[in-house]
């Protein structure tokens, strides 16, 4: 290996945003044809490092960076995404870089469309040549086939389930010729297990063709299964370069968080009771990609209920429907009173809180401060944090800041202070702000959707611990929707599995994985009773 030149070297890279140093000298070395894992907690600086590699405008509009990037031993200068593409760097983004209004094939071939001669092109040159639709279709089909995905290239991206969108993104990168390095930024975070396995297989096939792959993921079992080397960063600093063969999950997670990670176990479990706090009857929710088709579910007072199931089966839609974010029909009763559907305010007033799976879109006002984000719903719906002067109400800044400081400390939100904009926070810290926001309105029941999607181990623990603590100390009923069964099993009392828009079964969390697996695949025989 010593005589082989690395495809990519990043040497002592440093970067600050507004005086806050997020990268303190990170080095990275990726060899040709290897799958290299980049591991670190959220907020460790992985995204910033990738933004630098890809020449994203956010880096150069905030003063550039220090350090060197070398490809095949030569120092290169990447100022725009176009430069990165020119050097053969491809990226599968964590947030989808797909145009919803375009078809799959149009997205796969975006700005790399094969052209053919046209009347206008003869006179006006290259930009006026026609798109070669046949070739676009052929290439897209080939890329999809390589991934083993059964998708129609002419379908619009807009209606696809999230997991499929990821594959479109990957198909686009695969389709790029002359690509030397592919960055996968948490590609499996939104995929189901089967999809993830297919993806890892596709990655290995690409690596065998000599393409280096930089794999960013929180799923350490995937790191162990697929990679040859691992670079670990923590708090913006380089920690260690490891041979995957010489290490194990425990060591990696220890290096990432800098402390030992234990499995989350609850002190006490909820006793099965007959006291039903919420009853969901025949709920149907029209949420694209997560359709709910008649769910019946009873939530017991003081329990932690998990809602699990594969992506796209409708589990996400349940909480969204109850909260009035998507049009829904059916009947939801909370504490004996019916909750009006299709009316977010009614749900909030019934003291039902919701932490959305879409924290950047629904959960947060990205350009507002942490303190304001936490206070908004309580201010709007309960009149908290307001000073009344006759008919006029003004925001009580002191109380808002005090409340924010309380949660920043309690939930360990890593930030420069309560007045920092949430846009610049890492994903995990944004999630904590969302939870703080939900807690500020003092709910009786809290729905949390995908609380740990795209979050590192340390933050994951904190988030789950917080939920357990709420349940144990304040008796709050918690409903967690998550794609990660192991996570649900570690904190929940009961887990409902949703398949094809319906609850196919509710099992105690202590049931075996096999039984849950059967439910997820829609097999319910022998499960009754």
């Amino acid at each position: 290996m010593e005589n082989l030149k690395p495809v990519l070297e990043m040497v002592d890279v440093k970067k600050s945003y507004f005086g806050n140093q997020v990268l303190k000298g990170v080095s990275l070395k990726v060899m040709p044809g290897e799958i290299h894992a980049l591991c670190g907690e959220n907020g460790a600086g992985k995204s910033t490092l990738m933004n630098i590699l890809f020449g994203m405008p956010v880096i150069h509009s905030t003063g550039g960076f220090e350090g060197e990037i070398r490809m095949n031993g030569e120092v290169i200068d990447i100022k725009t995404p176009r430069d990165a593409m020119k050097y053969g760097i491809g990226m599968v983004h964590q947030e989808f870089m797909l145009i919803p209004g375009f078809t799959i094939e149009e997205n796969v071939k975006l700005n790399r469309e094969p052209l053919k001669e046209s009347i206008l092109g003869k006179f006006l040159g290259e930009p006026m040549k026609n798109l070669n639709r046949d070739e676009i279709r052929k290439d897209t089909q080939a890329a999809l086939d390589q991934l083993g995905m059964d998708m129609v290239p002419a379908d619009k991206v807009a209606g696809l389930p999230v997991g499929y969108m990821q594959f479109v993104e990957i198909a686009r990168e695969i389709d790029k010729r002359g690509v030397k390095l592919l960055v996968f930024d948490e590609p499996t975070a939104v995929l189901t297990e089967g999809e993830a396995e297919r993806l890892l297989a596709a990655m290995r096939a690409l690596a065998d063709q000599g393409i280096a792959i930089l794999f960013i993921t929180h799923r350490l079992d995937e790191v162990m299964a697929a990679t040859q080397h691992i670079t670990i960063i923590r708090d913006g600093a380089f920690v260690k370069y490891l041979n995957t063969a010489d290490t194990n999950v425990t060591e990696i997670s220890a290096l990432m968080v800098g402390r030992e990670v234990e499995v989350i176990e609850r002190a006490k479990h909820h006793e099965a009771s007959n006291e039903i706090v919420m009853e969901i009857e025949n709920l149907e929710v029209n949420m694209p990609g997560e359709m709910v088709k008649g769910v019946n579910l009873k939530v017991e007072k003081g329990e932690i209920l998990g809602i699990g199931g594969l992506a796209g089966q409708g589990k996400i839609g349940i909480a969204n429907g109850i909260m009035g974010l998507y049009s829904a029909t059916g009947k939801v009763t909370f504490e004996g009173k019916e909750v009006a559907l299709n009316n977010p305010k009614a749900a909030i007033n019934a003291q039902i809180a919701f932490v959305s799976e879409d924290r950047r879109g629904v959960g947060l006002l990205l350009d507002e401060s942490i303190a304001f984000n936490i206070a908004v719903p309580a201010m709007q719906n309960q009149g908290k944090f307001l000073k009344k002067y006759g008919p006029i109400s003004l925001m009580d800044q002191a109380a808002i800041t005090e409340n924010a400081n309380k949660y920043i400390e309690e939930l360990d939100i890593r930030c420069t202070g309560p007045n920092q904009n949430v846009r610049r926070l890492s994903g995990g810290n944004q999630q904590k702000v969302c939870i703080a926001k939900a807690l500020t309105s003092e709910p009786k029941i809290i729905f949390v959707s995908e609380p740990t999607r795209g979050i590192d181990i340390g933050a994951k623990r904190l988030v789950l611990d917080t939920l357990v603590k709420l349940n144990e100390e304040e008796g709050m009923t918690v409903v967690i929707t998550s794609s990660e069964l192991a996570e649900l099993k570690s904190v929940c009392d009961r887990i409902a599995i949703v398949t094809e828009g319906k609850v196919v079964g509710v099992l105690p969390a202590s049931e075996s994985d096999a039984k849950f697996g059967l439910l997820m695949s829609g097999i319910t025989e022998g499960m009754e009773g």
Partner: protein
Amino acid sequence: MFKNKKFNIKEFLSENAVPVVFLTLSIIFVYYSGTQPAIIMNDVVARFARNAFFVLSLLFPVLAGMGLNFGIVVGAMAAQIGIYTALALELSGLPAVLLATVVCIPFALLFGFLSGWLNNKTKGQEMLTSMFVGYFAHGVYMLLFLFIIGGIIPINVYELVLPSGVGARSSLDLTQIKGALDSIVKVDLFTFVFILAALSAVITVANTIKNKKLDVTKTVLTVALVVVGVAGNTLPALSMFKRVVKVPVVTYALIGILCAFISMFFKTKLGQDMRAVGMNMEIAEVSGINVNKTRITANMISVVLSAFGQIMFLQNLGTLSTYTAHQNVGMFAGAALLIGGASVTKATVPQALLGTFLFHLLFNVSPLAGQNIFGSALIGEYFRVFIVYGVIALAIVLHAAKKASGKK
């Protein structure tokens, strides 16, 4: 899943609510205006010919994500500079129109570049920006025509300048170029229908040979056109139309060529880039598309086309109100496009054509209808002003609402 989608009248109505409402309104107004339909038709045919270019020119900025380009008034200004130059050189007829076209192109390109550049500095507020570009350009235009013309550039044609010798006259007679395009070939309505039928037949045959399959829709269209043509020439009920309605063939041919150009354009690489930029700038940028350049190009095409549009407009009208002729161009074209069922992010050639037709039909009949329904022509007059601003406001509100619901 949606393959077995059947035609659903309710869905059709809700998706095409705007054109359906305006079509209904038009029919009611035509009835109450008490005017011979043939006379209305003749006027609408002329209005359509002189306005279609403006509306079509808006397609480029809409598809490039810049909304309605109210800034096409700068294109109209470029055209007026061209026309004025032709008049100053004492040209007339087709040569004058051709010279005006040649002169206006560099101006239109420059204005389009500048307003496009400004649009790039104010992403997300393009409609507002382009509207104020129009107001600002109006000021510069005034300076040019009130002071520089005659003041710095000597003009020797007496009729073109104010008696003091400085500044252009506020109303210019364009008799010498009136109808330069329109009058080349004029045929009656049903002869024109036959011409369309012939064209349609040629396209149908070509398509059929190319795809080795009969193009059913186009065949039906051709047959329908022939039937209309024959009916018009034989049925006495339609003889009024045959006598009154005259179609300027060359102007319509130019509009046809533009439509063909647009649909070809959006099959090209540049057209695809424009659509990508229009749908999501950030993703387009990351994919390596030069977003700013693409947007400026869209803007420049739009402004050049609107300049051509203003030349076609003026040669039809026969007079030039030097200081006001350009003022409402952007607003009216925008309203027409929206009436055709377009939104500020999505528009097609048929929508532009339908919208132009409906808008000018309403424009024509509303004063008389107002007179006959409410006893006051002014109400009809108010109504058409209300339509223009109302439909634009409505479209922008609907767009915002859709955007908000699309976030879910």
